């Protein structure tokens, strides 16, 4: 017998048959996996400075996925997320979106941490008729001014987030206000929403001084001097993350927080309070996810148990706001598909445009139909040091987004105005 190419080829053929058989057996062992998974293409910043938010967020998603798939998946199919890194760049995000839709054949898109990325994926989704669930970014333009049926937003937006703070500000006796906000879209949105809403609730407030450091500025001494000279009673900060830590560390020795009351929605998150430690701005009014707060446990008895499960799942980490957002986003996407009884884009959009409500361990999240915007509960509190010497958010007050969010009529007016502007 002649050993030639034919024999080699037939041996290879045998081998591939054997391998496919093995693969079928391996897959067949898990009944849920025998079904084709429902795939979500998730685009977010998984390298660089955003990882402080996106890593806990991703863990929240993975925890929800495990729970969902352990209890039979969605429509009997496992739910799967395919993660891509956008490197904080809208063009990278759109490239990833295209790759996910064309090559990975995902059913839906999800993700975003910066508004620019969110808006870019949203535009892609509209153009290509793919349904996109914006998750971690917060610009209100996503579902309001620039909203369309191919985008849904699974977490709160800037308007809800800031109005809760403005409401709290209105309850305190301060008249003269200043602010410090990073000089880019998010910072301008935040100050615009805060100042407008506060004026609406409390018409006698005065805005005496403004500070616009660039995003990522590390030296704030001149802004601190300007704030000290402003004569304001209180000031608002739309800074966040490392930049706000820089600012607080630099401002404290100047006695800024003794002179002006500090209103900073982001400072109460553990990613800022923990590194600040003893240098935390005690007494600052802030917002955040106080999963450890006893008052909150009374309102939401399931919260301690969820926090414990998260810690077990993430091998010892404490929950963060981002983790709750990832967790909720995965469940909201799963719920929309379940209700549609299909992964057909139009059917899922039909469900979203009707709207639905879901109970989470931290309260009710409303997915509103008219704008496909999530309306979750939110919390404001005061920064204090606990018995262990760790700065935390205390005196937590819950305000549900539904009490501050813009109405469907207002949203439709915003959309009409945006369309009008585009025509010009």
């Amino acid at each position, binding site marked *: 017998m002649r050993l030639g190419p034919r024999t080699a080829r037939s041996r290879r053929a045998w081998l591939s048959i054997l391998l496919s058989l093995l693969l079928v057996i391996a897959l067949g062992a898990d009944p849920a996996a025998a079904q084709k998974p429902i795939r979500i293409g998730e685009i977010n910043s998984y390298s660089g*400075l955003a990882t402080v938010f*996106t*890593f806990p967020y991703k863990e929240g998603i993975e925890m929800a996925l495990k729970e969902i798939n352990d209890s039979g998946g969605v429509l009997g199919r496992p739910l799967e997320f395919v993660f891509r890194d956008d490197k904080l760049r809208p063009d990278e995000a759109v490239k990833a979106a295209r790759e996910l839709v064309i090559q990975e054949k995902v059913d839906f898109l999800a993700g975003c941490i910066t508004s620019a990325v969110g808006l870019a994926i949203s535009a892609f989704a509209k153009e290509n008729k793919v349904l996109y669930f914006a998750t971690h970014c917060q610009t209100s333009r996503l579902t309001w001014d620039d909203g369309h049926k191919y985008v849904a937003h699974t977490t709160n937006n800037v308007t809800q987030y800031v109005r809760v703070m403005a409401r709290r500000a209105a309850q305190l006796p301060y008249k003269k206000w200043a602010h410090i906000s990073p000089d880019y879209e998010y910072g301008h949105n935040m100050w615009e929403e805060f100042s407008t809403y506060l004026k609406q609730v409390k018409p006698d407030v005065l805005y005496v001084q403004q500070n616009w450091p660039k995003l990522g500025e590390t*030296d704030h*001494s001149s802004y601190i001097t300007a704030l000290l000279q402003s004569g304001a009673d209180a000031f608002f900060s739309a800074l966040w993350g*490392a930049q706000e830590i820089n600012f607080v*560390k*630099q401002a404290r020795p100047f006695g800024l927080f003794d002179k002006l009351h500090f209103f900073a929605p982001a400072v109460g998150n553990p990613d800022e309070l*923990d590194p600040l430690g003893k*240098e935390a701005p005690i007494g600052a009014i802030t917002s955040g996810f106080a999963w450890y707060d006893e008052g909150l446990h009374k309102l939401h008895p399931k919260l301690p148990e969820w926090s414990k499960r998260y810690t077990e799942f993430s091998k010892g980490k404490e929950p963060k706001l981002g983790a709750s957002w990832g967790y909720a986003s995965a469940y909201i996407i799963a719920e929309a598909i379940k209700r549609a009884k299909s992964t057909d884009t139009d059917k899922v959009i039909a469900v979203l445009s009707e709207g639905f409500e879901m109970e989470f361990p931290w309260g009710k999240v409303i997915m509103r139909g008219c704008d496909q915007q999530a309306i979750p509960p939110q919390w404001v509190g005061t920064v204090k040091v606990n018995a262990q010497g760790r700065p935390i958010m205390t005196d937590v007050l819950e305000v549900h987004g539904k009490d501050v969010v813009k109405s469907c009529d207002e949203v439709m007016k915003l959309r009409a105005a945006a369309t009008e502007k585009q025509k010009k």
Partner: protein
Amino acid sequence: MEFLAGLFPWITNGPLILVQVMSGLSVGMFLFLVSVGMSLIFGVTRIVNLAHGSFYMVGAYLMVTLIEGLPEHPLRFWGALLLAPLGVAVLGGLIEVALLRRIYGRDPLMQLIVTFGLILIIGTLVLIVWGPDNKSVPRPEALAGSVRILGQPFPSYYLLVLGLAPLVAVCLWLIFYRTRWGMLIRAATVDREMLGALGVDVSRLYTEVFMFASWLAGLGGALAAPTVAVALGMDGDVLITAFVVVVIGGLGSFAGSFISALLVGELQSFGILIIPAISIVLLFALMAVVLVVRPWGLLGRPEE
């Protein structure tokens, strides 16, 4: 004067101006430590080391680890301040021997790509080693508060920076102009081939210079750590400003870096008080003006 006072109400407030000047100086000092190393590397090896900001970042992160790891002691902060820059110097030495040594004299574009690649590699390694969370270094007890200068509070930690950086500058001057090693470095910036021909071990000198420059960047990072958040991304922030400082001062000029760092520090400090809206642009406007008038920088030498 009255017109000015109407525009800028702070202009008659002497103590405030003094505090502002001093803040600007301390910012300039951090910039000096980073940019002088960058300038030194360029002067000797002709490589624009884009990874210099990464060395600054590693210095700050090492500071975090050392403060957490060393036993509680009044001298802990100072021990960490001593050790962290040394760690960065070792890292710099390894990188020079393993990588940069192979690209001296090559196409400048290729050198840029290599040092840019280093930014990405070091950034990812920092993420793997220290994780994504923001970190912070508390100020040493003695310097945690503020002192009053003409009635205005001023952070006492900045006084340390204001004292230490000029000390470093004086030591650098002594090293460059009063030691044999400094003489070799100056010789290398003028004519490297001749230096080699005269029997000096140039490749060893390069490694030493690179380690020394890394040490300076590490010191900058370690000193800055208590005043900022130690976080991913701090490499890029400092790199851009330090690069501007080096260009304004003149690539390869030590005194140029010093003057230009102070200039940039003050510009940032006062720019915001004068014209807040364009304070970001001022820095680059200054660079543009310098480049038009003296393309080789304030104290640099024109290329022959």
